[in-house]
């Protein structure tokens, strides 16, 4: 092991208990990946509930999923994939130390995230108007009245949790933008951008699975 750099003051962003910057970057990246494992299982619980009830009530789930607006869903998917692209390009810019492009792509990612949440908000408003929110005010065709409530409970729970993760991601992007702006992020020390990139891509992957499961099932029936 080469004689470690004893005083850590001149190496920007290196915490006292790590020996080298490489060790710290590997540790933080592994830490984020382990955190993403917990997120996979966190959403995994919801996917299990979805799988069980869809296998029990296919008819009700297909009928209820028809009430969702597929065009808005598709647009939202495209918006989120584009934000994943801009995030990847932001990480790319950080790797090359191009501060201006990094700021542009971070802003683009935030903008696209905002668009996604806006569309989602509109869809929620549409559900309130149509009385598709489970509970006393719920209205649905008599045939699937009981089981459709399970679908919409799942819909609100899954997309609600996903939207919450988007909001958290938006907050992280703001902090990253601020750090990139005031120069904490440099050519040597850009792992925070990489870490937030991993988080953002994960939130995109969750939506990649939510979209077909909630919007596309039984679409062909009518």
């Amino acid at each position, binding site marked *: 092991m080469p004689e470690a750099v004893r005083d850590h003051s001149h190496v920007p962003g290196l915490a006292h208990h790590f020996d080298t910057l490489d060790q710290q970057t590997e540790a933080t990246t592994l830490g984020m990946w382990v955190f993403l494992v917990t997120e996979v299982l966190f959403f995994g619980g919801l996917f299990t509930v979805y799988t069980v009830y869809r296998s029990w*009530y296919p*008819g009700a789930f297909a009928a209820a999923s028809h009430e969702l607006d597929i065009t808005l869903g598709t647009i939202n998917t495209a918006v989120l994939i584009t934000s994943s692209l801009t995030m990847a390009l932001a990480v790319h810019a950080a790797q090359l130390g191009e501060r201006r492009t990094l700021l542009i792509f971070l802003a683009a990612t935030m903008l696209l995230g905002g668009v996604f949440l806006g569309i989602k908000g509109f869809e929620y408003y549409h559900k309130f108007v149509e009385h598709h929110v489970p509970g006393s005010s719920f209205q649905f065709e*008599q*045939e*699937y*009245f*009981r*089981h459709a409530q399970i679908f919409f409970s799942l819909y609100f729970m899954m997309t609600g949790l996903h939207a919450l993760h988007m909001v958290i991601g938006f907050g992280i992007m703001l902090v990253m933008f601020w750090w990139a702006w005031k120069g904490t992020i440099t050519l040597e020390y850009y792992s925070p951008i990489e870490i937030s990139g991993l988080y953002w891509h994960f939130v995109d992957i969750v939506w990649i699975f939510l979209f077909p499961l909630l919007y596309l099932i039984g679409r062909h029936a009518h």
Partner: protein
Amino acid sequence: MPPLFPDAASTMATRVDALYFFLLAISAFFGLLIAGLIVYFALKFHRRTAEQIGARIHGAMSLEIGWTVIPLMITMVLFVWGASVYFAMAYPPEETLNIYVVGKQWMWKFQHLDGQREINELHVPVGRAVKLITTSEDVIHDFFVPAFRIKADVIPGRYVTIWFQATKPGRYRLFCAEYCGTKHSGMIGEVVAMEPSEYQTWLGGGAAEGSLASAGAKLFQDLACNTCHRPDAQGRGPVLEGLFGKTVMLQSGETVTADEAYVRESILQPAARVTAGFQPIMPTFQGLVTEEQLLELVEYIKSLQALPQVQTR
């Protein structure tokens, strides 16, 4: 001296006890073996001087394989024996005396086919297989009779069947074994196993207001089910005569056997599984009929089983 072992009063109890004693034997053997070795080694190899260290032994593959394979074999024996007894518990014999059980927050309600109703007390004949068809009106309860070694959760929204065959007359305690609220420990009762002759006299003596099926027939008229479900296949609903137990072709192409659960679900959620050739126009009776009334209707439809099944159009 307090009892240290429960009585065994059902055919299943002796088989469970045999498995229990086998497990006790294994546990006693390995428990004493480990405890004995620890005490023996602690005494024999007690540290004499402060600087003494142990022998440099790192391990022995043969021992490792031994104490992995042997426990594995023992557990597989346990698994197979346990599974066979479990299968016997899960599958009631063909001919059984059916009794309906409704668990409700903190009481047990029983309904015999001939109309007798009992609360927290169940009279059954000895020597005959009894099948309990149970459901709950509110939360999850659990029908547990220690002397019969039977226990099964009673779940709202679903029929759960339990069966036993009493071997010894007597009064056996009934517990609710799934936590269900304040009076969970008060939700107890007794199962009275009687000689068949005594059971008949008890049956006769009860102030029966007509059999469950007859109550079901009356309800069938009151709720105007007969306007759609007519025996001459001219009604808008499927013919119910001779339906129970048969397989039904559904609109979606699947087939399902018309058992208690299917009848109950078709009353509460008619559109879920519509019979082929019919429209989902039957209104739901969710909240209009109580669990007891549901049981009466199910029993009535079962009683139509004997009639020939008229070909529906």
